[in-house]
C-alpha cells in the first residue's frame, strides 16, 4: 500500500478547510454594524469593539459579524442590524457598548429581541 505523504495530508487539510469555510459561509446569524461616516462619528467603533470582545468569549461558529455603510437613518446611529435565519431582521438604534453586549447576550445567543433598543422590524 502506498504510504501517506505530507502532500496527501496537506490535501486532506485543504479539503476540510474548504468544507468548514463553506459551512461557516452559511452563518445562521449575521450581525451588521453600520459604519458610515455618520455611524462612526456617533460611536459605531465602540459598538464594534464591544461586539468583538463578546465574539472572542463565545464558542459559537455560526455567528458572522460584518461592517456595512450608512442606511440613511443617520440620526439614529449607531445602528446594528441582526439577521437570524428564518426571522425578520431587527434594526437596533442609538447603540453603545453596553447595549451591544446586552443585545449579543440576549438576542444573538438566546433569541430574545430587545424591543427597548429596537428601531424597527424590517
Amino acid at each position, binding site marked *: 500500500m502506498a504510504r501517506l505523504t505530507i502532500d496527501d495530508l496537506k490535501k486532506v*487539510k485543504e479539503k476540510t*478547510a474548504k468544507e468548514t*469555510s463553506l459551512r*461557516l459561509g452559511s452563518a445562521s446569524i449575521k450581525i451588521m*454594524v453600520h*459604519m*458610515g*461616516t*455618520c455611524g*462612526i*462619528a456617533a460611536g459605531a*467603533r*465602540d459598538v*464594534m*469593539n464591544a461586539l*468583538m470582545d463578546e*465574539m*472572542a*468569549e*463565545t*464558542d459559537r*461558529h455560526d455567528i*458572522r*459579524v*460584518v*461592517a456595512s*455603510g*450608512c442606511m*440613511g437613518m*443617520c440620526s439614529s446611529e449607531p445602528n446594528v442590524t441582526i439577521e437570524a435565519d428564518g426571522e425578520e431582521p431587527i434594526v437596533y438604534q442609538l447603540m453603545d457598548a453596553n447595549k451591544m453586549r446586552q443585545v449579543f447576550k440576549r438576542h444573538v445567543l438566546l433569541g430574545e429581541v430587545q424591543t427597548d433598543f429596537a428601531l424597527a422590524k424590517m
Partner: protein
Amino acid sequence: MKELSLHILDVAENGINAGADRIRVSVVEAGKENRLQITIADNGRGIPADLVHHITDPFYTTRTTRRVGLGLSLLKAAAQHCNGAMRVESIEGKGTTIVAEFEYDHIDRAPLGDMSGTLLSLIMGYPDIEFEYSHQVESRRFEMKTMDIKNMFDGRAVSDPDVFRKLRQILQDGFTLLRGPG
C-alpha cells in the same frame, strides 16, 4: 470626529466601497519635524479625472440615497485646521490614495486615538479585504499585514476566536513598542 483614527476608519471604507481588495494605511509621526502624516491607499476602481476636484465638496455625491457626502470633507477640514492639507491622487482603474498632513503639535489636532480599535473593526468587519498597516513614531516602526496573520493560521477566518485574540495581541504589542520606553 474626535480622533484621527476615526477618520482613518471612515476613509478606508470608501476604498472598500470602491471595490478594493487591498487597503494600505500608514501613519508617520515626526514630532521633531512637527508633522503627522496619514496615508490611506486602496486598489479600488479610482475616481474619474473630471470628478476628483468634486470629492471634497460635501454637497457632491454619486450616491442616490442621500445628497451629502461628508467623509473626505471632514478629514480635509481637520487637516486644514491644523495648518495641514489633504490631497487625493487617483488613477481610474488602479486606485486612490489619500494623504492628510497635520502640524503635529497644533492645538486643534485631534489625538490619533484608538488606532488598534480602528484596525480591528476594519479587519473583522471586512474579513475578505487585505489590510497593510505601517506606523512610524520618530525612528520606531511597527508594521503588520493581515495576509501574514492569515498565513500564520493556515487560512483560518479572522473571526475565529484564536485568530482574533492573536491579532489583538500583535496590535497591542506593536503600539506598546511604538510608544517606547517610559
